[in-house]
């Protein structure tokens, strides 16, 4: 798999087209905003989305873990869409999540969607510090470098008269926002007020995710 090299806080990170981020020196894989069980949650409201998102997301994780064999997997929030989602995992986890938790440390940072839910074998945290980096769902006031999720950033590209939107990795000097690793999750424009309030508008490094490649703007 091709990756895009990203330097953030003087460390080398690899951004993959499957929307995961790899921290090479510490052999740590980082993902965010999976929203597992979103389809079930909508079904409660009689909007019957295809019930395959959980299976697909889990498979995506397993494929990454098989390939990279990281020591740690950090999920920076919204692993689950809501309390119902654990059911969804039980139903469709045919390759057994617990098998992977043996070899990889799952570090689950709680997001706004899953803050009150527990899963066996998962350590959970409101945020998690490694050296000068803080892993948190939504950025907080701190002097540390922060790696977070929550916003599902996408970038609007206008080029030669055409407009496209692409899911993106994005960071400024101190804050890094991951794209959503989910299947049925939408995105939020990097220029929106919500993201600008966090990252500002200037000196952004934006990495749109293509079919098999992460680009750099």
């Amino acid at each position, binding site marked *: 798999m091709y990756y895009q090299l990203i330097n953030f806080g003087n460390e080398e990170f690899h951004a993959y087209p499957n929307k995961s981020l790899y921290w090479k020196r510490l052999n740590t894989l980082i993902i965010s905003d999976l929203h597992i069980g979103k*389809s079930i949650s909508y079904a409660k409201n009689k909007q019957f989305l295809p019930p395959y998102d959980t299976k697909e997301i889990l498979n995506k994780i397993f494929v990454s873990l098989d390939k990279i064999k990281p020591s740690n997997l950090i999920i920076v929030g919204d692993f689950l869409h809501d309390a119902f989602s654990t059911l969804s995992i039980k139903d469709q986890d045919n390759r057994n999540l617990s098998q992977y938790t043996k070899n990889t440390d799952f570090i689950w940072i709680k997001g706004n969607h899953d803050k009150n839910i527990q899963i066996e074998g998962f350590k959970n945290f409101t945020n998690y510090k490694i050296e000068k980096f803080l892993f948190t769902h939504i950025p907080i006031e701190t002097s540390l470098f922060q790696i977070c999720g929550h916003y599902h950033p996408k970038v609007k590209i206008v080029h*030669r008269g055409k407009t496209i939107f692409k899911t993106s990795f994005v960071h400024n000097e101190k804050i890094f926002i991951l794209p959503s690793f989910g299947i049925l999750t939408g995105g*939020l424009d990097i220029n929106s007020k919500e993201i600008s309030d966090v990252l500002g508008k200037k000196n952004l490094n934006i990495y749109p995710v293509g*079919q098999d490649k992460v680009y750099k703007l």
Partner: protein
Amino acid sequence: MNINKSNPLLLHPLNKWMKKKKWSWFPHQIETFRHVRTGSDVVVFAPTGAGKTLTGFINPIDDLIKLKKFKGLHTLYISPLKSLANDIVRNLEKPIKELDLHISFQVRTGDTTPYKKQKQKQKPPNILITTPESLALLNSYENAKEFFHNLKYIIIDEIHTFLDNKRADLLSLNIERLQTFSPNLQRIGLSATLKNKQDAKKWLCRKKPKIVSYENSVLPKINILESKKRIPWSGHMATYSINEIYKEIMKSKLTIIFVNTRAQAEYMFKNLWLINKKKLKIAVHHGSLEKNLRLKVENNLSKGLVDCVVATSSLELGLDYGDVEKIIQVGAPKGINRLLQRVGRSNHNLNTPSKAILVPTNRFEFIEAKAAIEEIKKNNLDKIDLKEGSFDVVAQHIFATACAGQFDIDDLYKEIIKAYPYKKLKLNDFKQLINLIQDGGYVLKNYDQFKRIFQLRENKNIYKLVHKRETQKYRMNVGTIIENPMLKIKLGTKTLGNIEEVFIQNLSQGDSFIFAGQVLEFQSMKNNLVQVKRSKSLISKIPSYSGGRMPLSTNLANSVRALLAKSNMWDLYPEQITEWLKRQKNISKIPKKDEYLVEQFPRKKNFYTVVYTFAGWHANQTLGFLLLRGFKEFNYKPLGFVANDYAIVLWSLKEAKEIKTILNLGLLDKHLDNYLEETSIVKRLFRDNAIISCLIERRLPGMEKTGKQVLFSSDLIYTVLKKNEPDHILLKSSYKDAKKNMIDYERLREILKKIDKKIILKKLTSISPLAVPIILEINRENLSKKETDEYILEDLENEILKEANVLSIN
């Protein structure tokens, strides 16, 4: 007119009123009256001005008077437009009030107040005038059966606009429902003249079907605008003839200028104002304008307060504007029926001809305009193809049925297959649609606990809605018309109208564009509002609207081909056209009526292949893509293609020597699925399907996204479904829609079936005169969405890299 002494209408309650007005009954009115009275379902074909509306009401009024103070709903009148429904009420009011008849009548549309609707349900009028959507809603109420059980007549106005789309499917299902409620119901259809009258009859009539037809012997007078300037090679804006168009407006009391797109309307309007020295009152009218602005224009039009209105198809149907003297059609007519409909907007007096002037905007359009005039003289109309009904509409209908109360699926199925579009609906597909409404209909049974409708334990054939609140969701999502995401345009606090989101996304702050006849400057976009200010700039982008591009009709295409081949006519054309065709004949060839000309020539470093199919834009677009695939297989290294109504041009690095081997039916069978997949056609239709079948909810005004993450998009659903459950009924439904609508599948199939024996291949040393117009259209990319996205990213990255290198060298 000579009135037959045995005319039964002389005893009709309206006869007194007719006499007072010094009007006499038309023969088709007498005929219709007789047929309906003896129990027939009837379709009446008559031109505008021949008392069509009255024809529909003759029997109901007669019946109501005889029944004396009939209580409850007696007659339902279905109109395609809300505005038309209001107009019908005004027309009905005159005789009923003047004769003091005891008949009550009301209108019910989306604009009717909830209070009035409630009252109508409690105390229905004798005659209710409504739209297909409002009828569907009425049928979803629990008391629908009581409401309709005495219904005697249903009148479908402008039935020719209802025959080939999803709205027609919805209407057909609801008519069958009414028939179930009231088995004695009789159907009356009112239509403009059609070629395939039998099809309209099959669609509507069940009981002793009858056709009544009245042909107007006075033909319209249609001419092509004579211009001193040259008709351009290509383009669609008619700038060359603006002064002559202006002169034509001055000559007539009231003119409507019809154009083909909203962009053309804005452009034409602006250009007329620039030369409006006589200060004529000119207005613009199209579907994106704010309702109040549109109503104002319509009002001024009917009162004769304007000199000219530039309009799109938004003014094709609807109210009679008696004072319109002349129609100017700018751009290709595209079809005979459409042109006649437009021409018919002028002069509603049956005995004097309508007057129209055609303004071709390029050379092919000149031939097309000529051909259209010829066909109208011969009264050779376009056929309207009846198509199999769409699945998503059935799904919506199932939901509606459940809202009205528990139902038996066998009964429902039997009722549905009585509707003409669903004669061939398979029981298995129907059951899958039941499942779709129940819980999404997935193979994976995850949603058992969340069902929307469920089977009764004691009788598995009976289904019931789980909760009454679901009816609210149905009512929010009723209907088959799905608009593109639109944004409101605000000038200060005033709303000017709606514009496609896609268009606004391409603008930067300060960019100007024309809308509602003004040059506007884009300032900002917030919460689905586009803030603009008046611009002093004269340079502007034109709103480019995605919709509204109609393909050339097969009938007119054939006529264009025949006319091209008639070289003895050429000398009658303007010199430049004659010259153009003669040079084509010398350098290459003018194809005969049944021949398919293919030209190949080198140009710049590439090889060009032009295929003249005259198959219409949709079919050519598809064929272009298929050829691109074929060229790839033969390793010709194709670079792209462009299609218009008449031809396709492909350019490749290598010469496509085996074009005759590639161009046949096999090409279609081999690559069609691929085509549907790679261009986002099916994906786009899937969105409509998901909304119409109520799988996902409509984005209604006021509940749009407010800057937060989009909840989910139909594209994501499509991708997940495609991967995991490719046989899902909604995917099947989207493919079906794609084949029948978007790509003119059957039309292309017909051409490819016979093309290989009819290809005339011309190898040329350079571009031919006939190829010039389409070559000029090359500059739009025609890659698939997926490819385009990657291409844009790649290109942008390269540009930035280049820039970075340059900077570091400096």
